[in-house]
């Protein structure tokens, strides 16, 4: 085994563990920020400032009884959370999160901070996201409960509807970057315009960024688009009948999807690991900061906006967001033709 291969395996494990712990951190942040927004204290008993609360939650979930409704389809009921969690983890594999590094001179050849460098990375993320829908649909159907079924159907209808705008928003960036590889796209965004404005695609694709973020919230089933689990009408939506670790897997998948969504937004629109003051080798700090900012924005949105009505969601998706995305793509393509890439 070459040192590079060992480093690659280490990197894969590292990303896996980081994703797992990012979900735990997000749970804590979500609860703390929610508490601040509502003038409460939030978790504060377990550990200093309640920092160990996610750990306590996980232990509690592990020791809960695994329940399965008698009329459920046993195989699919067990498969659905696994599908959801696998899709969530797999999508992050093609996301680059830092410049090439030699690990402080330990390696002779530079290591790319990306688990799998695929030249169609964006499409891979898209494909895996469409696989994640199955987890939710099957969970809804196999539970054999009306709340689950309605939640699953709503969620898949919502995800399919917003996937179109999501894809078209991505296409605008692809046209400008002239590449499908995420690391290429990030590297196109290095440097500045006029000496101070970073060359982020956010500034050439503001509408694309808006569409991406909106569709991203809908894709991850977050408030104000959290219809699949609208608790006032559907108990908990597609995971109503799940308990213990299989419930935890859905929970995990949701938070990891959020992290992936933010990481991709950072790579596509916010210049990835490029930023001022820090050397290239410490670019991952910029990457983390940007991802954290977007995640905070997600949480902020959730506790600020009430849920839409379902017909409003569909009307917004098909009649406003999708035409906007098409216009954005057309204008971008025309601009690239006229001015050159």
């Amino acid at each position, binding site marked *: 085994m070459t040192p590079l291969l060992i480093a690659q395996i280490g990197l894969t494990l590292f990303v896996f563990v980081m994703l797992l712990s990012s979900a735990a951190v997000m749970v804590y942040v979500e609860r703390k920020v929610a508490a601040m927004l509502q003038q409460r204290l939030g978790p504060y008993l377990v550990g200093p400032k309640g920092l160990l609360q996610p750990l306590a939650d996980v232990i509690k979930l592990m020791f809960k009884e695994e329940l399965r409704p008698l009329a459920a*389809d046993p195989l*699919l009921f067990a498969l659905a959370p696994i599908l959801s969690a696998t899709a969530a983890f797999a999508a992050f594999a093609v996301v680059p999160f830092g410049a090439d590094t030699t690990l402080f001179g330990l390696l002779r050849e530079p290591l790319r901070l990306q688990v799998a460098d*695929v*030249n*169609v990375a964006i*499409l*891979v993320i*898209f*494909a895996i996201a*469409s*696989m994640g*829908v*199955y987890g939710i*649909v*099957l969970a809804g*159907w196999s539970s054999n409960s009306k709340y689950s*079924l309605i939640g699953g*159907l709503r969620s*898949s209808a919502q995800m*399919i509807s917003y996937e179109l705008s999501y894809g078209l928003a991505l296409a605008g960036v692809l046209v400008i970057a002239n590449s*499908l590889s995420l690391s290429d796209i990030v590297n196109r965004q290095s440097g500045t315009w006029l000496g101070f404005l970073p060359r982020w695609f956010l500034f050439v694709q503001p509408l694309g960024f808006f569409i991406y973020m909106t569709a991203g919230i809908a894709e991850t089933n977050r408030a104000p688009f959290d219809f699949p689990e609208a608790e006032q009408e559907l108990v908990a939506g597609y995971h109503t009948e799940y308990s213990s670790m299989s419930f935890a897997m859905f929970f995990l998948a949701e938070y990891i999807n959020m992290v992936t969504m933010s990481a991709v937004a950072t790579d596509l629109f916010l210049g990835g690991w490029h930023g001022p003051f820090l050397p290239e080798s410490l670019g991952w700090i910029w990457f983390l900061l940007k991802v954290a900012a977007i995640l905070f924005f997600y949480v902020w949105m959730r506790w600020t906006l009430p849920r839409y009505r379902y017909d409003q969601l569909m009307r917004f998706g098909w009649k406003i967001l999708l035409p906007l995305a098409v216009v954005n793509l057309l204008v971008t393509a025309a601009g690239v033709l006229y001015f050159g890439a």
Partner: protein
Amino acid sequence: MTSFYLFGAVAVGASLLVIAQRNPVYSVLLLIASFGALSGLYVLLDAPFVAVIQIIVYAGAIMVLFLFVVMLLNAPHEDTEQDLERMASRRPAAAGGVRIFGGALAAGLLVELWWALTKNGGESGVFPGGAVSSVRTIGRSLFTDYAFAFEVTSVLILVAMVGAVVLARREVVTGLGRGRPPGPRTLK
């Protein structure tokens, strides 16, 4: 080569299992597994773009719709045997026809499979497209050499979509003497 046989075995095995299932939901899922294995074969052919498109379009978009239909029709079991017996007691000629037709179809498929395996098994020619893997090449040939076919296909899909909307659309009849009397519940 090992991965070729692995993906090939999964694709063939899953496809066979699709028709061996009683529950149509399982059939749909096995078909998705088969598509996944096919996409693996595309990766081995150095065509990652086609592989990913295979997943997005077939496994992602089309099969979700299939799954929807199957789930909502709520047809958990296909009792073809019992259906056939019921049919045989009522209309023996029709049932016999169904059996003969099914048998002929299966025999035809078997012959075709045998022909494909023996005739083309020996040649392992070079993949004709050369560099079709790159997105640029695919896009260029789609919009130049195959522009007509591409546009006609999109018209075909549009026709199917319009047809589906026409079939699914229900006229809301409001007016005296036809169906339910007009009131807040008939308004959409």
